């Protein structure tokens, strides 16, 4: 009797589903896999891989916990849960007014009151990831391009391109001027896009920068805005790390630049923010788009139906962020602690003979290991990265995954672990550098 061999399913999937644009095959994510398989633990696995590739802020949890302990009622809806019903039914894409108001206030506080935010211009999304994708859907058509300065957050390749069909054209920055964005680089990127027959729809900057860990200067922000006006394109400013600047005076938001210009040309500017970094709550999935363009606000709101924030979470955070005493203290203390961590890692790396880019913000530093490369190429960088991952057992992010044009730079996160773990990591690096010195002496 003939054996029936079942035909493998031939039902077709979409191009989006089979595309590799999700980028999870890149080294950036390969390192995560190595960590997942052998995660460091202070007690149970001291020889495991230390995760230094995740930009998460764990330094100020105690402040959040203390607040929640003292304000039990925000986690519930009061005795007998009277407010619960409305909250559970609330799926209006405008979002809770109280929450938007609280977010606007929080964003103002972070900027030291130097910019004002209108709660009605805030569109809520489930995370900044969704906010960036949503803006891309709104500002560009499939096949259009956004200009993004390098090095940039590896996730942009996925978030800005995957489902939207939009392309990224890099604005090349290099170490000669501390990776600052120049008008020449902007123009070169624009020309490059044109030569590929791509319509440029906007510039997307991250300020403070990921992975550089530094804020963009006021003059540069003005240059970028001028460029956007001149080309009649949009400007998206992802300010997700704005509350993680070590010194409040060093961060200038595009909102301030606009205010100084009396909001002329504001209709092309959109700000992305989130509570994942500054407040250390990435699990809550809270992101916002702040746009000065009415069309964009309306459209973004409607599109946000696909990515609404749980009303329970909105309620909880509205209470927390409306507590002025809490937010003032949190912002100040968080900054101080991040600064302290930053100093710690910079000193530690310096002792090991490693230089970093001068940083003043973020949850990571931008480390220069180019002197250690066998060859000044991407390949050389990946070889070094592999050694650091598998021998030193540290997962750090290679500059090539951030599209850095100069090989040898690495992003190293320092806020997602305890001080003790950071010390262990620094010891390992120190040891590694010592061994290399010995090796090179013996060669």
């Amino acid at each position: 009797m003939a054996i029936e061999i079942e035909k493998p399913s031939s039902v077709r999937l979409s191009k989006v589903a089979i595309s590799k644009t999700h980028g999870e095959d890149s080294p950036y994510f390969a390192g995560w896999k190595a960590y997942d398989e052998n995660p460091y633990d202070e007690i149970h696995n001291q020889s495991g891989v230390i995760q230094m590739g995740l930009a998460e802020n764990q330094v100020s949890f105690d402040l959040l916990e203390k607040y929640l302990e003292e304000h039990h009622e925000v986690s519930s809806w009061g005795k007998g849960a009277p407010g619960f019903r409305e909250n559970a039914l609330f799926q209006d894409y405008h979002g809770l007014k109280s929450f938007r108001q609280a977010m606007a206030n929080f964003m103002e506080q972070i900027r030291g009151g130097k910019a004002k935010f209108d709660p009605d211009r805030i569109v809520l999304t489930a995370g900044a990831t969704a906010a960036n994708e949503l803006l891309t859907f709104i500002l560009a058509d499939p096949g259009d391009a956004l200009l993004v300065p390098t090095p940039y957050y590896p996730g942009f390749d996925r978030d800005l391109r995957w489902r939207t069909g939009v392309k990224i054209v890099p604005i090349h920055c290099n170490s000669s001027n501390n990776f600052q964005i120049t008008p020449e680089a902007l123009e070169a990127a624009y020309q490059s896009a044109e030569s590929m027959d791509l319509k440029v729809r906007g510039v997307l900057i991250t300020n403070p920068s990921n992975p550089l860990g530094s804020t963009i200067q006021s003059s540069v922000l003005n240059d970028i805005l001028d460029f956007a006006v001149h080309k009649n394109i949009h400007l998206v400013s992802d300010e997700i790390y704005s509350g993680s600047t070590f010194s409040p005076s060093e961060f200038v938001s595009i909102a301030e630049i606009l205010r100084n210009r009396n909001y002329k040309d504001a209709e092309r500017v959109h700000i992305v923010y989130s509570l994942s970094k500054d407040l250390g709550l990435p699990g809550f999935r809270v992101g916002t788009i702040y746009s000065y363009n009415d069309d964009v606000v309306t459209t973004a709101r409607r599109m946000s139906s696909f990515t609404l924030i749980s009303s329970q979470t909105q309620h909880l955070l509205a209470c927390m962020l409306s507590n002025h005493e809490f937010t003032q203290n949190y912002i100040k203390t968080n900054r101080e602690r991040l600064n302290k961590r930053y100093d710690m890692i910079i000193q530690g790396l310096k002792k090991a003979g490693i230089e970093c880019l001068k940083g003043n913000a973020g949850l990571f530093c931008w480390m220069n290991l180019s002197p250690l490369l066998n060859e000044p190429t991407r390949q050389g960088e990946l070889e070094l990265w592999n050694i650091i991952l598998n021998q030193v057992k540290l997962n750090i992010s290679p500059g090539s995954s951030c599209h850095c044009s100069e090989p040898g730079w690495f992003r190293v996160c320092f806020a997602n672990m305890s001080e003790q773990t950071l010390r262990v990591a620094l010891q390992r690096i120190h040891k590694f550098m010592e061994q290399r010195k010995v090796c090179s002496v013996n060669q």
Partner: protein
Amino acid sequence: MRLIVPLQGVVQGRGGLILGSLIPCALFYFLQLYLKRHRSPKPQSNPPSPTTSSPKLAEMTRTSSRSNLFSRSIGQVRISSRAISIAKPNESPYYIGLDKASEDPYDRLSNPDGVIQLGLSENRLCFDLIEKWMSENLGHSITGRDNGELNINGIATYQPFDGTMELKLAMAGFMSHIMGGAVTFEPSQVVLTAGATPAIETLCFCLADQGNAFLVPTPYYPGFDRDVKFRTGVELIPVHCRSTDNFALSITALDQAFNQTRKHGTKIRGILLSNPANPVGNLLSWEMLYAILDFAREKNIHVISDEIFAGSMYGNEEFVSMAEVLDSEGFDKNRVHIVYGLSKDLSLPGFRVGVIYSFNENVLAAARKLTRFSSVSAPTQRLLVSMLSDARFIEEYIKTNKRRLQNMHALFVAGLKGLNIRCADSSAGLYCWADMSKLISSYSEKGELELWDKLLNVGKINVTPGSACHCIEPGWFRCCFTTLAEEDIPVVLERIRKAVENTTDLLNSS
């Protein structure tokens, strides 16, 4: 124009210096005021407020083009073609009615003349049970207690985007329970999303390319137009169902629609069903499910089965999930994907909890990665793990919900019957599908919309007209009754009566 007269007076020497200086000053003042109001952005230290007349509030009277956003042409910076079509004023009665009702919501005590909302399928019948659960359990549910310490660590950090294993487990168990226990769902095949809305969209992104299409039986949930088409570029091809069959789907109609579409050069990638059906409320029988799977196999296409109302049963029929038929009939499971959510059965639409349940590993892999754009918030996940794992509560909830749903449905349908308005046979959902074709002036979409307008603006009740659901027969309306209390039913009936009293002998005809 009136200013010219006093100016004349100034010129002719009457009124003198005072008017002569006052009027130009006044003119200047008013000019500044005018410029200030109409210039955008405003020259002040606060950022300009968005235009308050948002297109969402567009009126039914289509005289003025409410696309003021475009006529004002704020800056010439361009937005995408996708965005342009989405930014347009929402003309669907589905959305207009929802807005009207939310602007002036009926309240028995505080706003008895407000608009009664029958256009939003929300279940308010069992909130008391959930509230009770919340007040008894909530202290520990959100932040968790590890050895008496409040621990936010577990939920603050990055979680798997497709949901925690705990919630997947709890959800798989809940789905199985609520669907009658006839099928087991595997937690590893559960992908959690921020509501069923992104679940549908994500599946469309995974199963079809821009320009492809899904077949969808009509009448269908108006939201599908948004969920499927907005950003994916995928089309929906209606497969019309008729009242003569109680709006049952026929394979012949499916086949016809498939062939027609293919002739026009569009590729069909799948069928999108809702079972229980929205807006009709009927169920797909085992035989029908089998026939659909067979059809899908023949055409080698996908089937998306939106089963979000599976737990909102009031009839005597048993709900059969697509998963059940798959289990026992040996069909290729790779083409079947089920959508579920807690917005209807558990009355928690605000919490944004949806499910993609697929048997296709490749779809699961892609969907999991896509959930980064629409994840369930961690505190909500924790709360729900607690709630869904409370077997005693869930048992009581399901039983009570069914009973109250049955009661409400019976009362409402009987009430409509008393007005000579018949409803389609249905067994589930939070609504009934009412035939008001006898009450419309002309048997057309225009007539239907006139009635809808009258019901909304005169009767002050918001119901969803069949045309918004792409129903091919005019005069049908979806009326959601689960937002009402029993005392509200006579009010609703009275308002319907009042709204149509001059058009037809509502009460006496048979």
